[in-house]
């Protein structure tokens, strides 16, 4: 098992390294201007050297993402439980949930900026729209996947709905819930960045737009690198929490 993991990690790192080497050499051999495509070494250097500039923007974006996640958890979890407890509600709400995902966030972003202003509110809201769906849908699916035999057992014990929820359904649904949360935190960065592109005064999206306008392409890539690191960090954090919570797996 351990050697399998080592093999997988080595392959993944090998692919990434090949990509970076080809990029670096290609850009230098073809003499591509830095404002078109900077080499990875320049990007890495900028990401480090310009860290004091990038850091406050990254912090703003991270705050928007974390608030979006918290808001999504605070709304998606109760909604999924309500829908589970009341199938009629599920039938009524599902079309709206699906519709919320069918509307492109880009189309809504300018309106949300008008409604919620240039501050963090509009970005948090966009992140919430994106994260809400995977959390609600996976949690509902997890709750519904509980085996009939266990439901029968709890009915025979005379357990109330809340007892069943606490002791049976919620732990049962946790693996699926965490899968949804992992997807949610990864795509949450997209929501925050879209909001910042449309209208903001701070954040990595704002930094990208500003740097792009000044042809500071290496700073655009450095911001993307920070954003990727943030997304990856959140993904790893959720994985860590999942491992701590779901001890029985």
């Amino acid at each position, binding site marked *: 098992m351990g050697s399998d993991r080592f093999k997988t990690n080595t392959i993944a790192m090998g692919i990434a390294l090949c990509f970076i080497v080809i990029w670096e050499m290609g850009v230098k051999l073809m003499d591509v201007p830095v404002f078109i495509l900077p080499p990875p070494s320049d990007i890495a250097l900028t990401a480090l050297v310009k860290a004091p500039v990038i850091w406050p923007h990254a912090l703003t974006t991270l705050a928007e993402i974390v608030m979006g996640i918290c808001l999504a958890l605070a709304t998606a979890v109760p909604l999924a439980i309500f829908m589970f407890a009341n199938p009629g509600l599920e039938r009524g709400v599902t079309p709206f949930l699906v519709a919320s995902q069918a509307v492109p966030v880009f189309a809504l972003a300018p309106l949300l900026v008008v409604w919620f202003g240039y501050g963090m509110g509009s970005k948090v809201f966009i992140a919430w729209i994106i994260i809400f769906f995977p959390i609600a849908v996976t949690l509902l699916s997890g709750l519904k996947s509980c085996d009939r035999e266990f439901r029968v057992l709890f009915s025979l014990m005379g357990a109330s709905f809340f007892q069943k929820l606490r002791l049976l359904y919620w732990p049962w649904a946790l693996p699926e819930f965490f899968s949804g949360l992992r997807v949610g935190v990864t795509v949450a960065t997209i929501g925050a960045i879209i909001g910042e592109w449309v209208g903001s005064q701070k954040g990595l999206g704002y930094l990208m737009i500003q740097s792009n306008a000044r042809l500071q392409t290496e700073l655009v890539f450095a911001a993307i690198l920070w954003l990727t690191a943030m997304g990856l960090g959140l993904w790893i954090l959720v994985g860590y929490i999942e491992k701590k919570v779901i*001890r029985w797996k």
Partner: protein
Amino acid sequence: MLEVIGAAKSFGSRTIFSNFTLKVEPGEFKVLVGPSGCGKSTLFDGLTGVAALDRGQITWKGKELAHLRNHAAYMQQKDLLLPWFTLMENSLLPAITGRKKQDKTLARQRAASLFHSMGLKDFEAHYPAQVSGGMRQRCALVRTLMFERELILLDEPLSALDAITRRELHSLLLMLQSEFNQTILMITHDIEEALILGDRICLLSSCPMGVIEEFTPKSPQPRAFDTPELIDIRVRALDRLRSLNSIGPIGATCNPKNSKITDDGGVIINGI
């Protein structure tokens, strides 16, 4: 005392049982033996209120009831232990759920005593994934006893276990019955198991299910299976099933067309 009179259940045009009648005396260990798929579990679903019977009367201690949910503990074939709880936490579930919650300290003491009786003394803090199938089933039995009901319904609780573990659990079941004076109604498709455990053994037909013969072994417990009396009952039971051409299977699948009894009393199913 439990009485089931004229119970009926159908699924569409398929009649599972149409006029099923059964009587279980207090403190009795009654075993229903019948082919797999004959409707034994459906009967238990009806008794426990999991699925409503089409008609029929269920009487417990002279009182007519819609189901036995509040009077019987039910143990199924699978151990149904929750993997996120330890064995002790699993066994305490009947005590901490429902309207009539038991005193937690007393319940824990009772569970600890049952763990001791079942040979699980040092495994209270283990998770189900950390113990063997037999131990999980014993824990499920502790949980069933923690319901603190006078009647225990056992739906093939040992059929997924290996022969040695089954023997161990047979002894435990008999010990429980004698120690706690429980009334037990068990279903199985294993006639040997029925003969070892049952005070009374009801032989069931299938399609529709009904009691075709009742046996009362005289040998005292614990019984050895190879006594002349039990061998005689086994042969008679198999003969009875053969005469009805409803042998599906004492020990296997239920399709009379695919199964037959050999001269030495064995069962051949699907040519195997």
